[in-house]
């Protein structure tokens, strides 16, 4: 299977006054195409730091991050932006929709960075909104939508550019448990349908069960990698 993400010997140290914080302390793993991975751990364990590093938002102190065959730790700001534009979709915890734009325009925004003509952009965005069941809210502005609806717009926005990988940092962190389930199911469905790689950070062990594999992280180190998929196939076999 194709390795989309390769992380080798990754370190991230922060200096806070005299003290040195080891946010990531030697991390190695691979993520394959079409996988849904969850990173779980307690608060302050280094989950966000890891995800930011994968998305090229932060530079590692040491180690390699190879995504889609490219060493992103060596890229400069301009190259990173280009890399994100072409390979990565991002879902934020607090949605981060642009308040001046309605749902369709928000979803279409990343396409405008790729110089997609406006009419094509709008058509694609509308199709995405249909996919996330927001047919009726296309003209709504962010402040006219619920948190769950906003996050679904966020999902549509991440998917619209047809990225290889989608990163999500606590995508349901601001939603109630019922809505969280809905959004998780939606993400899982869409990711499977379109065969996308999804890396999600969460501290909710239950939501992590939606993932194929779960990375348990603590104090900047990976404790264990749980393989739900194998488990599920085994369970399925047992049931038969």
């Amino acid at each position: 299977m194709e390795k989309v993400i390769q992380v080798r010997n990754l370190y991230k140290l922060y200096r806070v006054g005299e003290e040195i914080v080891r946010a990531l302390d030697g991390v190695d793993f691979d993520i394959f195409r079409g996988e849904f991975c969850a990173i779980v751990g307690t608060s302050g364990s280094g989950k966000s730091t890891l995800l930011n590093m994968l998305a090229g938002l932060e530079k590692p102190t040491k180690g390699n991050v190879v995504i889609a065959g490219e060493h992103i730790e060596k890229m400069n700001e301009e190259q990173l932006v280009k890399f994100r534009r072409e390979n990565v979709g991002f879902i934020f915890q607090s949605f981060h929709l642009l308040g001046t734009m309605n749902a369709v325009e928000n979803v279409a925004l990343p396409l405008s960075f790729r110089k997609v003509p406006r009419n094509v952009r709008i058509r694609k965005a509308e199709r995405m909104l249909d996919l996330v069941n927001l047919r009726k809210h296309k003209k709504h502005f962010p402040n006219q939508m619920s948190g769950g609806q906003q996050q679904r717009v966020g999902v549509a926005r991440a998917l619209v550019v047809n990225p290889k990988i989608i990163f999500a940092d606590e995508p349901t962190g601001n939603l109630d448990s019922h809505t969280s389930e809905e959004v998780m199911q939606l993400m899982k469905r869409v990711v499977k349908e379109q065969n996308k790689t999804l890396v999600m950070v969460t501290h909710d062990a239950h939501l992590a069960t939606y993932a194929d594999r779960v990375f348990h992280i603590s104090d900047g180190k990976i404790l264990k990698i749980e393989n739900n998929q194998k488990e599920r196939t085994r369970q399925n076999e047992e049931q038969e």
Partner: protein
Amino acid sequence: MSWMDLLRMSGSNLKRRKLRTFLTVLGVVIGTTSIVVMISLGLGMQQSLYREVEQSGGLTSIRVTGESAGDSMYSESGSESEDTAKYIDDELIKTLGTLEHVEASYPVYEMSVILLKGGYEGYGFLKAMPYEGLMEEKIPLAEGGKLPAESSSLELVYGNAVITDFQEKGGGESYWETGVLPNIDLAKDSLFLILDQDGYYNSQSGDMDMGSDYSAENDGESQPVKQVKKHVVKASGIVEGAPDDYNAHSSYIYCNLDTLVPILKKEFSGRVIPGQPTTSSGKAYKDFYYSSAQVKVDDIDQVNEVADSIRQMGYSVETNAEYLQSMQKEFAMIEAVLGGIGAVSLFVAAIGIANTMMMSIYERTKEIGVIKVLGCSLKNIKQMFLMEAAFIGLIGGVIGNIFSFFVSAVINAITGHGAAMGFDGDISYIPIWLVLVSLGIAMLVGIMAGYFPAKRAMQLSPLAAIRTE
């Protein structure tokens, strides 16, 4: 991002903060207006200069003067010390006419005269030229007027402001004090013209008290105060314009030189014609000398050459081109100073733009971070903010220009279209190039003011941005 998308984004951001955008734009409006209006004043002056030059023969005419003959309106002194007297006489006019590149040359005679009508008395300045010379002056005549042809009786063309030179005899108040025009219709009425001013004064003072001092000086002429000759004159035309309007012809009285000279010779036979030079013994010369000669050159590029060759003949030469050049330097200075004053307010506006952009960036830190995470290139982010700043500059420039035209119109109305300031024409003049240049400057100022904020936006770390809650 395409330009269209950038524009749309910048526009919607400006629309979002209507009041702030309005205030920032207002700063640019004031800055642009002050620059445009200030420079328009300098240009207005320049325009009136050009018109003046145009009216006094354009750039191809040369004024030749020698030893002073006739009265001068702007009395020049200091040239008397020259040994070899160089007078403008018929011979010189002929010589000048034969010079290469000279199209025509004609004499000009200027003298002060007194006009009488009823109880009114007016002091005027007579400018006499041959008919072709008057033609060349391009005097705009009011309807029904014509230039005086050579004839036996004097016919005058009055400047439109000449009427204001009349006042009641014995020191009555002038038009400038009372605002009431004398009850004279220059176009229709016959007036008395007095060429012998000294004689007139003598007769006046003789009427009152003494008159003996003068006759003693007067070469032993024994007869007491003699009545001066009063010439009956009619107008052949009046210069176009209201009494308050100023132009190059407004305060002159024109007449035909070929008519004037015989009349002068007849009236002053045996005596010295006023303004004519005298021999060391106080006698008049045989020839009649003119105040100046006007030379018309056929080609604008030859003007300097012709002027130089006349100068070598020992005469003083003034060309409009030289005058214009020296004035242009002066006007460039004036415009620079005025423009500089205006630029100060535009500079303040630029600080306003920078401040607005800076605030807008702080406010939108999160948004900038998000679009960066979503793959908006750094260049696009910079362009977006520069465009916003340029927008503010451009809108301010457009409104400022519209406003400038309004202010300019008000200034021109208040100053009576330049007349109050002694200008021929509007004091404030906004040419199309000034509009375009000021628009460009306003936009440029916007872009420059927005440059550092835009750079800052570009450098914002996407991470810091999305972390901000």
